């Protein structure tokens, strides 16, 4: 009797752990879609809307967004009594790996993602979502996490979706292809970050790791990248303007929740599943951009987004399992 109720409790606990991991992945996708939309909304306000240069706005917004996300996370970890863990983690080798991941995922990937969005609009979103494919590929090479046939099939479907989206170029966007290439750079970088963070995160508290990630990414973008591209006056003007800063505060909150959930999912249910659930942001991002920003919905973007999300689901789980009854 005692044994069977222990078994039942254990099953319940394992189920809860897995459900938490999977739902963290789903929430990370939804909140990333919200973050994407809010950053674009911030760009509609002065001084961002009339700024010149392809890189200035993406890096100013991503720097401010990540840094504000880092501050939200400091509040969260402070509430949980974990502020000391930040220094302790940075003092270890895996903590330093998180910093390397942050530099690849932050200034490189976020900057490329936002530049892609600026040049190719919502089309860039699903392209960047192929990061799950690169994540699984790098996990295979570096972590020796061999993907199953089903995972490979899902990955191929994701690529097919990305190609579908790119099939018909929208009219009147001269930088469309460069935008798509930027989105692809973001995807490769995020794939690398996912593997590095899953590696570093395996012996660190992921809530602490993601806090380090956002603070490092935001600070390096603001202190190093923004002055390098001569965008410091734009950043100062954005902070002074108020409203765009407020919107970036909200986008930072969404990004904080998204990354918190993404890292948690990676460490609870594995890198491949965590990343595949995260990429459902492609679906949400496109929907929000159509609803709130008046982006035009074309048949290719609808078909491509659905195919990518379908591929992500197949990477994550065997749809046939839903039909099976428990033995």
């Amino acid at each position: 009797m005692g044994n069977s109720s222990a078994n039942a409790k254990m099953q319940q606990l394992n189920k809860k752990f897995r459900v938490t991991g999977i739902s963290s992945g789903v929430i990370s996708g939804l909140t990333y879609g919200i973050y994407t939309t809010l950053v674009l909304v911030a760009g509609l306000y002065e001084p961002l809307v009339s700024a010149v240069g392809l890189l200035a706005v993406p890096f100013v917004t991503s720097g401010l967004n990540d840094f504000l996300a880092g501050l939200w996370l400091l509040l969260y970890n402070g509430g949980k009594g974990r502020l000391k863990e930040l220094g302790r983690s940075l003092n270890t080798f895996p903590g330093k790996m998180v910093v390397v991941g942050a530099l690849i995922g932050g200034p490189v990937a976020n900057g490329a993602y936002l530049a892609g969005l600026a040049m190719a609009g919502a089309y860039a979103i699903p392209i960047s979502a192929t990061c799950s494919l690169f994540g699984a590929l790098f996990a295979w090479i570096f972590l020796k996490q061999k993907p199953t046939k089903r995972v490979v099939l899902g990955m191929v479907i994701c690529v097919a979706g990305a190609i579908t989206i790119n099939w018909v170029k929208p009219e009147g966007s001269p930088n469309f292809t460069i935008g798509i290439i930027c989105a692809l750079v973001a995807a490769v970088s995020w794939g690398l970050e996912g593997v590095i963070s899953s590696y570093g995160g395996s012996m660190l508290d992921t809530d602490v790791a993601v806090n380090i990630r956002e603070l490092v990414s935001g600070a390096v973008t603001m202190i190093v990248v923004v002055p390098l591209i001569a965008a410091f006056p734009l950043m100062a003007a954005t902070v002074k303007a108020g409203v765009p800063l407020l919107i970036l505060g909200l986008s930072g909150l969404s990004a904080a929740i998204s990354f918190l959930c993404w890292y948690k999912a990676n460490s609870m249910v594995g890198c491949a599943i965590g990343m595949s659930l995260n990429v459902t942001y492609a679906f949400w991002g496109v929907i929000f951009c159509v609803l709130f920003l008046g982006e035009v919905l074309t048949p290719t973007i609808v078909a491509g987004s659905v195919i990518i999300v379908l591929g992500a689901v197949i990477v994550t789980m065997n749809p046939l399992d839903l039909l099976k009854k428990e033995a």
Partner: protein
Amino acid sequence: MLLPARTAVLNFLYQAGEADIDKIMEALKPMYGTEKQFNKKMFMEHAMSLEANGLAEMKSYELGQDGELMLRYQITDDGRSTVEKYVPVTFRRKEGK
């Protein structure tokens, strides 16, 4: 400076070989006991995440007298080599006796 809490859990398993959550918390209490993060929920999450990452594995479980599950974990070969690679020798001696 102390090790991060999750690393300290792995480091303790490295020394003890296997232990349940209560034992792990008892051993780490002198170092982390005054911190708000020192609670059972957090330590169960540490152990289960280490397990999900292949650094530890569950050895056994049973119901304690309070009707709560007592989970017993042991370190894996991967966990052992991770500690040997990334936890400084001084910590391996100092903590979790």
